[in-house]
């Protein structure tokens, strides 16, 4: 280490010392790169390296390029200095210099390089006088530049050139060009339609005619690389329409599929199968005839049984992909035994693939076999896989259970064998099913009782058994060993071993056992009361509260019966588990099988008998009262609301003063609490939003104006995440996700310059099949001029389409533009209306104003309509610093020190629009430290409409009480043509504070 440190110092000296020979320079540079690789940051000599690029001789230039491309990244400032030199090298006549420059740009070139060099690189690529060595580098260099800035390749001009490039004879240049084509078509396959037949020709040339120079055959196979790339490119085209072309392609594919055998030589094997697997992928993509498909499945079935591990691995992986193809599932099922054997493969990579495949191919017909196989495997599986394994087993058991008792068996076994990996979601779900199905209750309770007899059980098992026995043990009363007392003893034995999170559940169980003991057993009662007494002073608030409440309740005698009665049925919810699995799989993308899962029908067995929730409000939610409110938001991550809710529970805490009705609700909520947590936040909050709109007296028309929910709930496809939250997040930042559902993700990236906005919509297809009939329509409000570039009708599988959207702000207004977006996936037509975050604050530019500038301005804008003042009540209480942060995020610059009163804020900003041009806006907020819910706001600008709109905008952001948008405070200068003004009601509805206010 020490020696290395010295070496580094020496390095600096030597490198900076002038007059080194090129050989010495080179030697030091490589040493430097070597220690860089070993993990020592080399942050010196960058400038010297960059300046060496312009050296006239090859050795020095080479050193310069090597260091630059190894140590600098594309955003490095020094790199900019070199653009000109690099360009000179590229357009110069010296081929070796061209190669050096292209290599550097191809490795680290950024946007600026793309803009200044793309044209020259294109010229090199199509030049006939260049050697292939240079041209192939130019092709890949262009690919890099295209990735950095797609605009540098002008589609109209380039398509023909690209097609010509595919006629190239030199395989090196052709391989690079094919990579370039893959990148181009993955973005826009329509434009490059004419390249499709050329790709087929290349394949014919290689695979059929074997027309290729000797040095490009690899173990006797004509350039497997190029074959693979050509087939990859073809997969980006949705289909092949020309029958001749299709026929010749299938001829080639057939030849590849049939002509490949497993041979002795490993390398030859690999190469041949690289081509074969790509051909398989292409066949799947092209939806070949059934005959060819079953041929493919047969081939894959052969592969998963061969000795070669690589082939086994890919066989399983491709079989998983094959599941997406219709009509072949049955032929895949024939290989089930072999796949289950693969679960015991010595290679963990293969075991994982086998697990994925089993998970994907599972349906009602084979669920029992597969899940039992998985459970068996769980005890021997390696640690790294157990979590995934148990999650998958749980999901399959839930989706495809032939009957419910089997489901309960499976989950209890799962908890028993791998309790550490069974998340709370899983046991919550069991409890829900048992509660909702009366037939199941005695069985589940008996099972739970059996597990408690085991000597050492997992804590999760304690939780679920305690809960089930607390609720349903009275159904077992006649069986041996199931008297209340015995059950109490066996559960209480576990208490010393469990953590604090489990104790509340045990306390509830004790209370319920006590209640079910008829006639009362004084001895048991005393035992349980002692326990309650002991926990009355527990440091954990949850335990303490329960102990106190149960103790008080159990002294009430008969009244307890109502309060501690069985839990009401749960409203039917989508399983959080399955939801989570879907989301997780969408993230990790490739697992197409999961998507299949999502579309399939679940087993009928698990349809809950109670159908209350389907029509009308779910019975439990309104009954639950304030306490659920405390629990629910904790999932949506809103700490503020929680604190308010907790304040609410305070008066409820003293039980004696309250009439018998209230605590019962309270308690129910309490018991429901842990279960309510698993509810998907969107679903849980929704009924309350409705409640707010009713209680708050907001006219139902507001719901219509709140554009988003309309789209949101009429579709069968559920969005992922809350659309409103996403919109509000995007109002504050410039890039992020606007909308997401299982099929598509719409991202947005915006740049705002004065009154102009440049947005790019990223439409990403998350599936392996294309999305059709894609339509995007922008409905701009009157004050915005918006131009959306053409949106392609089809989004190819796994592709992302970028649609630029230009925005011009004409006038100040708070109205919001709406994107009407629809697409078709399979038979599903999905239509959503999304608000676009082109809101007022985006056209603001923070500007700092000194006292000398501020006061004359402030005074010159005297009184309405240029200066408006309003006392705003019902403000979300925020500390001053947080309010300042909020203003900053709205691009209002806080000017400290202008107002002598520390409770006041002064902010300034510039607003840009066509009508107002750049307009200075000044804002003063006076807050009352004694009452944070009200403040006085003064807004001043040189334009009356702007002053009004800005004031209203800020009010909306600060106020939390839902007010109708066209409320009593009629605007003095009404905003023009209100297309949609959803901001205030929607904001109010999602705001938890507002919901609470509405409920009160």
């Amino acid at each position, binding site marked *: 280490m020490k020696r290395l440190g010295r070496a580094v110092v020496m390095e600096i000296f030597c490198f900076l010392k002038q007059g080194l020979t090129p050989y010495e320079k080179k030697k030091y540079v490589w040493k430097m790169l070597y220690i860089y690789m070993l993990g020592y940051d080399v942050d010196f000599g960058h400038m010297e390296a960059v300046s060496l690029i312009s050296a006239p001789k*090859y050795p020095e230039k080479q050193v310069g390029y090597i260091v630059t491309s190894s140590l600098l990244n594309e955003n490095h400032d020094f790199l900019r200095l070199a653009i000109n030199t690099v360009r000179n090298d590229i357009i110069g006549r010296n081929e070796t210099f061209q190669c050096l420059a292209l*290599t550097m740009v191809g490795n680290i070139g950024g946007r600026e390089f793309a803009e200044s060099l793309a044209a020259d690189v294109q010229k090199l690529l199509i030049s006939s006088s260049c050697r292939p060595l240079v041209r192939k*580098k130019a092709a890949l*260099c262009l690919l890099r530049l295209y990735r950095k800035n797609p605009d540098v390749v002008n589609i109209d001009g380039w398509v023909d050139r690209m097609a010509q490039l595919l006629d190239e004879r030199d395989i090196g240049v052709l391989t690079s060009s094919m990579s370039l084509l893959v990148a181009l078509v993955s973005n826009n396959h329509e434009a490059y339609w004419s390249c499709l037949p050329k790709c087929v020709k290349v394949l014919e040339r290689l695979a059929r005619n074997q027309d290729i120079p000797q040095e490009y055959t690899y173990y006797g196979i004509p*350039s*497997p690389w190029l074959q693979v790339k050509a087939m990859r490119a073809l997969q980006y085209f949705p289909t092949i329409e020309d029958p001749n072309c299709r026929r010749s392609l299938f001829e080639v594919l057939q030849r590849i599929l049939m002509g490949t055998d497993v041979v002795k030589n490993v390398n030859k094997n690999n190469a041949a199968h690289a081509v074969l697997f790509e051909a398989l992928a292409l066949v799947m993509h092209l939806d070949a005839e059934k005959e060819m498909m079953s041929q493919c499945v047969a081939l894959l079935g052969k592969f998963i049984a061969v000795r070669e*591990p*690589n082939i086994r691995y890919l066989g399983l992986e491709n079989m998983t992909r094959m599941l997406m193809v219709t009509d072949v599932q049955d032929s895949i099922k024939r290989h089930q035994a072999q796949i289950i054997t693969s679960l015991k493969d010595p290679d963990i*990579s293969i075991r994982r693939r086998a697990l994925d495949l089993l998970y994907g191919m599972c349906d009602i017909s084979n669920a029992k076999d597969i899940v039992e196989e998985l459970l068996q495997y769980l005890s021997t599986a390696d640690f790294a896989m157990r979590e995934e394994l148990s999650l998958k087993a749980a999901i399959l058991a839930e989706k495809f259970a032939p009957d419910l008792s089997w489901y309960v068996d499976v989950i209890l076994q799962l908890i028993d064998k791998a309790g550490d990996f069974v998340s709370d979601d899983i046991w919550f779900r069991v409890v829900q099913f048992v509660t909702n199905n009366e037939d199941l209750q005695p069985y589940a309770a008996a099972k739970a009782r059996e597990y408690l007899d085991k000597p050492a059980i997992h804590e999760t098992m304690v939780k679920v058994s305690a809960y089930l026995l607390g609720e349903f043990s009275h159904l077992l009363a006649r069986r041996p060993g199931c008297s209340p007392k015995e059950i109490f003893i066996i559960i209480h034995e576990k208490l010393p071993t469990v953590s604090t999170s489990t104790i509340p559940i045990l306390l509830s169980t004790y209370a319920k056992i006590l209640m079910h003991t008829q006639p009362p057993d004084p001895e048991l009662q005393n035992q349980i009361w002692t326990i309650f007494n002991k926990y009355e002073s527990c440091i954990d608030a949850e335990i303490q509260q329960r102990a106190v409440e149960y103790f008080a309740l159990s002294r009430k005698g008969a009244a307890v019966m109502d309060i501690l009665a069985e839990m009401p049925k749960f409203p039917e919810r989508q399983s959080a588990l399955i939801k989570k699995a879907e989301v997780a799989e969408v993230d990790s993308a490739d697992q197409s099988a999961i998507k299949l899962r999502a579309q399939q029908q679940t087993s009928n067995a698990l349809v809950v008998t109670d159908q209350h929730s389907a029509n009308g409000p779910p019975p439990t939610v309104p009954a639950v009262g304030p306490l659920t409110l405390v629990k629910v938001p904790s999932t949506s991550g809103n700490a503020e609301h929680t604190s308010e809710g907790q304040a609410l529970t305070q008066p409820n805490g003293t039980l004696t003063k309250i009439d018998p009705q209230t605590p019962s609700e309270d308690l129910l909520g309490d018991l429901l609490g842990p279960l309510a947590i698993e509810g998907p936040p969107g679903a849980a909050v929704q009924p309350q939003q409705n409640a707010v709109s009713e209680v708050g007296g907001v006219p139902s028309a507001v719901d219509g104006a709140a554009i988003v929910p309309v789209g949101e709930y009429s579709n069968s496809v559920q969005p992922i995440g809350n659309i409103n939250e996403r919109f509000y997040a995007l109002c504050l930042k410039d890039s992020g996700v606007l909308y997401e559902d299982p099929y598509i993700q719409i991202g947005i990236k915006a740049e705002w310059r004065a009154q102009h906005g440049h947005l790019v919509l990223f439409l990403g297809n998350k599936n392996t099949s294309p999305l059709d009939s894609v339509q995007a329509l922008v409905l701009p409000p009157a004050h915005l001029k918006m131009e959306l570039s053409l949106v392609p009708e089809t989004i190819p599988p796994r592709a992302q389409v970028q649609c630029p959207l230009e925005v011009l702000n004409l006038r100040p207004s708070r109205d919001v533009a709406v994107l009407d977006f629809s697409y078709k996936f399979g038979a599903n037509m999905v239509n959503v209306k999304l608000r676009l975050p082109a809101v007022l604050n985006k056209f603001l530019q923070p500007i700092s104003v000194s006292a000398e500038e501020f006061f004359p301005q402030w005074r010159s804008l005297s009184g309405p309509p240029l200066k408006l003042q309003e006392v705003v009540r019902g403000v979300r209480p925020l500390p001053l610093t947080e309010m300042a942060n909020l203003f900053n995020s709205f691009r209002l610059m806080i000017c400290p020190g202008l107002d002598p009163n520390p409770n006041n804020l002064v902010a300034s900003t510039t607003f840009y629009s066509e009508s107002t041009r750049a307009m200075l806006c000044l804002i003063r907020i006076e807050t009352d430290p004694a009452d944070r819910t009200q403040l006085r706001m003064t807004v001043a600008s040189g334009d009356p409409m702007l002053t009004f709109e800005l004031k209203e905008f800020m009010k909306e952001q600060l106020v939390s009480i839902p007010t109708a948008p066209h409320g009593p405070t009629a605007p003095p200068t009404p905003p023009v043509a209100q297309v949609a003004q959803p901001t205030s009601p929607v904001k109010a509805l999602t705001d938890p504070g507002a919901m609470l206010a509405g409920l009160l």
Partner: protein
Amino acid sequence: MIKAVMVINTQGKPRLAKFYDFLTVDKQQELIRSVFGVLCSRAENVSNFMEADSIFGPDSRLVYKHYATLYFVFVFDTCENELAVLDLIQVFVETLDKCFRNVCELDIVFNYSKLHTILDEIVFGGQVLETSSAEIMKAVEEISKLEASSNSITLVPKTVSGWRNR
């Protein structure tokens, strides 16, 4: 796209590490360490593929090949074919073999620059540039000639006698 190329010896020391997306030095070291951590736990005669999602993020794949004391590791995304990348490793090693005549770890340590030159002729900015080892050798020799024309850099001979005679 190929995200990274690494050569790690069986002791866990990196002998070559090239990342085609910019990463900080610390991140690079962390990745090398975690890759090695998984590699060294794998038995012989298993597949050449490894789950790399946890190390390199979703949609990453990792293919490696074990030769004597060295692991050759390629990390790439779903746009590449796994077996084809495996072929590429073979091309890389065959080219090294031609260049150094029966390549060993020492050749790679002492001729770090040559190793880089060869890799740059095979993989270019994360894309495959050339797959014919004959063509690669031609390009590398051309560069060596240019380098030699201005100085006397020669390969470090493997034998002691060769060293003396230099």
